[in-house]
């Protein structure tokens, strides 16, 4: 995550005109075990901007990212890619999970595994991996089994792995949560560079400073509901929603929201 | 109705031929009805039956290899051996009879013809009474069984039923006791090709396991069974047993013969 190397980032700028974007969610609900975890959510993700999803723990940020990425199916509503190449949308996306899955292989094998299945040939793979390992500071760990890495190192590997796929849309679920300050800073630079190269980034974070630094657009989620969608500049000046306001003040504890006078409709959750 | 009606049971170590033929299923209820003693019959190879009896795991030995039975008594494993019944061994083989066994004058000639034609002969190969009988016949002919084994001479190493199954699917010849043959249902194209030679007689005997050697042997119950088997009632029951209408075993206990 060497911020000085932005020019050599292995992303392929010229390919990046919308192939699957925009992504349109219409009245999406997600239920599990009788609980409505995502409620009537409608939103459109457009090419270009970086979207940050904010919200307290358990708000549904990770579920929303999974729904968008197609890993879970909505119980109601639709999730549609509306670009020209929507027959294989998975090919143009990648995701960094909040708890990254480490294949029981070395760091390098973790990277080459996904590249192989994207049909990238051996020579190109080796070069790409070298490059990306360097940018994420994993070069000297290349041969270590991925499951033995420290948590922060695993998070870097997850970023490297998703990034190497050169996606049009990159989902990231709190990608810097386990990173040290310098690595966080460096990853923010990388994210900026990836975005510049034409990749749509949709990420969640609990670091409000980071959100402010990176976001073009903010979604504020609360108990499975999208309470506010706004331009970053506007949102960080002052959110419209009262719950978003108290969240920004570091006050919003979702389990004692009654003290915060919430909208009436929020009461139904987990009553059964 | 008698002294033993105490729900006692005895174990009889016998061979698969008697069990598979259904003889015991037929005659035992008659015994149990009159005495109240139930009889548990073990159908295993002759060698195993003798071994079981020697170890004291049965009260009675009921097999068809007189030499071993006499030996069994001589070594004080058993008390006394009685003849019970007989039937005979037969040579079965494929209907088209490639070795022309049907025309043989005696069993040794039949065996000679098989060896000469190198027709497939399936041997039990398990040291059972039947196997030993078959070897008796082979020994009278100059033939190298060891080198032929695996070629035309096949040693099945299994019970009569399994050997018959094997013989019927490869259309070979084999020697079998008549009772197993009569009850056997997977004959395929096999038919009886040679029978009636007096040396093919198959004698069954019954012996009580020595209760002084094995204290737990239920001597009174066992004597009752042996007594019944060689009594007129028991012998008549054996003679009455039929497979598809044909008599299978011929009772020949010493006393019974006299009466007849």
């Amino acid at each position, binding site marked *: 995550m060497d911020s000085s190397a932005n020019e050599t980032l292995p992303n392929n700028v010229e390919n990046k005109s919308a192939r699957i974007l925009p992504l349109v969610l219409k009245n999406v609900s997600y239920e599990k075990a009788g609980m409505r975890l995502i409620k009537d959510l409608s939103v459109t993700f457009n090419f270009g901007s970086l979207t940050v999803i904010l919200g307290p723990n358990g708000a549904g940020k990770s579920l929303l990212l999974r729904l968008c990425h197609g890993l879970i199916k909505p119980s109601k509503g639709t999730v549609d890619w509306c670009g020209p190449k929507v027959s294989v949308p998975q090919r143009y996306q990648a995701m960094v999970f909040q708890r990254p899955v480490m294949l029981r292989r070395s760091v390098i094998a973790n990277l080459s595994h996904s590249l192989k299945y994207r049909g990238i040939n051996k020579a190109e793979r080796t070069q790409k991996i070298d490059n990306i390992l360097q940018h994420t500071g994993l070069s000297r760990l290349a041969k270590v089994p991925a499951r033995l890495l420290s948590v922060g190192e695993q998070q870097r590997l997850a970023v490297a792995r998703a990034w190497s796929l050169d996606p049009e849309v990159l989902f990231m679920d709190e990608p810097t949560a386990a990173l040290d300050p310098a690595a966080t800073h460096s990853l923010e630079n990388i994210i900026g560079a990836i975005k510049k190269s034409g990749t749509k980034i949709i990420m969640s974070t609990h670091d409000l400073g980071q959100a402010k630094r990176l976001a073009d657009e903010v979604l504020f989620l609360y108990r499975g509901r999208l309470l506010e969608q706004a331009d970053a500049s506007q949102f960080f000046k002052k959110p419209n929603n009262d719950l978003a306001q108290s969240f920004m003040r570091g006050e919003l504890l979702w389990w004692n929201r009654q003290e915060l006078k919430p909208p009436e409709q929020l009461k139904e959750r987990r009553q059964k | 109705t008698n002294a033993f009606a105490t729900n006692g049971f005895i174990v009889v170590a016998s061979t698969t031929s008697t069990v598979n033929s259904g003889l015991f299923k037929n005659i035992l209820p008659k015994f149990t009805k009159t005495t109240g003693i139930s009889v*548990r*019959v073990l*159908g295993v190879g002759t060698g195993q039956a003798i071994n079981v009896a020697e170890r004291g*795991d049965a009260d009675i030995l009921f097999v068809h290899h007189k030499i071993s039975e006499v030996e069994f008594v001589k070594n004080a494993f058993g008390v006394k051996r009685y003849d019970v019944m007989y039937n005979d061994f037969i040579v079965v083989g494929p209907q088209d009879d490639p070795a022309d066994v049907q025309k043989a004058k005696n069993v040794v000639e039949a065996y000679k013809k098989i060896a000469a034609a190198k027709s497939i002969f399936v041997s039990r190969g398990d040291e059972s009474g039947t196997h030993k009988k078959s070897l008796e016949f082979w020994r009278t002919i100059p033939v190298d069984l060891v080198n032929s084994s695996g070629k035309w001479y096949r040693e099945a190493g299994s019970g009569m*039923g399994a050997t018959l199954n094997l013989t*019927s699917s490869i259309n070979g010849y084999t020697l079998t006791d008549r009772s197993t043959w009569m009850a056997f249902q997977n004959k395929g194209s096999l038919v009886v090709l040679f029978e009636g030679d007096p040396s093919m007689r198959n004698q069954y005997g019954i012996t009580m396991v020595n209760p002084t050697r094995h204290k737990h042997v239920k001597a009174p119950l066992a004597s009752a069974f042996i007594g019944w088997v060689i009594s007129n009632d028991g012998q008549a029951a054996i003679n009455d047993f039929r497979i598809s209408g044909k008599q299978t075993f011929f009772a020949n206990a010493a006393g019974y013969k006299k009466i007849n």
Partner: protein
Amino acid sequence: MEIGDAFAAAMALIINFESGLAEIVLLSLQVSIIAVAIACLIGLPIGAALAVFQFPGRTAIAVILNAMMGLPPVVVGLIVYLTLSRSGPLGTLGLLYTPTAMIIAQICLVTPIIAALTRQTTEDLWQEYAEHLRSIGIGPWRAVTTLLWDNRFSLITTILAGFGRASAEVGAVMIVGGNIDHVTRVMTTSIALETSKGDLALALGLGIILLALALSVNAAAFIINDAAMKRHG
């Protein structure tokens, strides 16, 4: 062809449902289920303990256990036979040629299978749980309890593998049970008997019934397991 005959024989057996068949079916189930239950009581803790405890010779025991999954039924039958025989060490109990002897033989066959497969499954979960359980300071035996409980939905396949071995096995029960009519005759020994009588259709018919039984037991296990899983998440 005989397969058709076999189905006809199976149907006939079921339709003219004789008490003889019922007796055999019940004895089969009884012997196998009791044997598997006892094998679980022994094999599950042993398997889990092997995953958790660290001691010299642990791998050796694991390898031996794996090898013992291949205990030949006839050999087990012989050993149990020699032990229970009147001239054997436990001869005075008079257990030979009883259902109890058959249960003992099957326990010997099934316990290593359950223990070896449990060791493997538990080892995978222990990797995940070890740090937490050792952190809260619970002893290895209590760790075994926790692992077995939390792994119960995976262990069902292990137990069913053991049940499969028990219910299908003929070599051991034949030797120690003796296939005595009305006393120790079970499905598999009946099938062997009918085969040796050359009545292949009847043998296969019995085989079909045995498979149907196994299927019912497995389906029941699955349904119970699934319901429990739904309840516990």
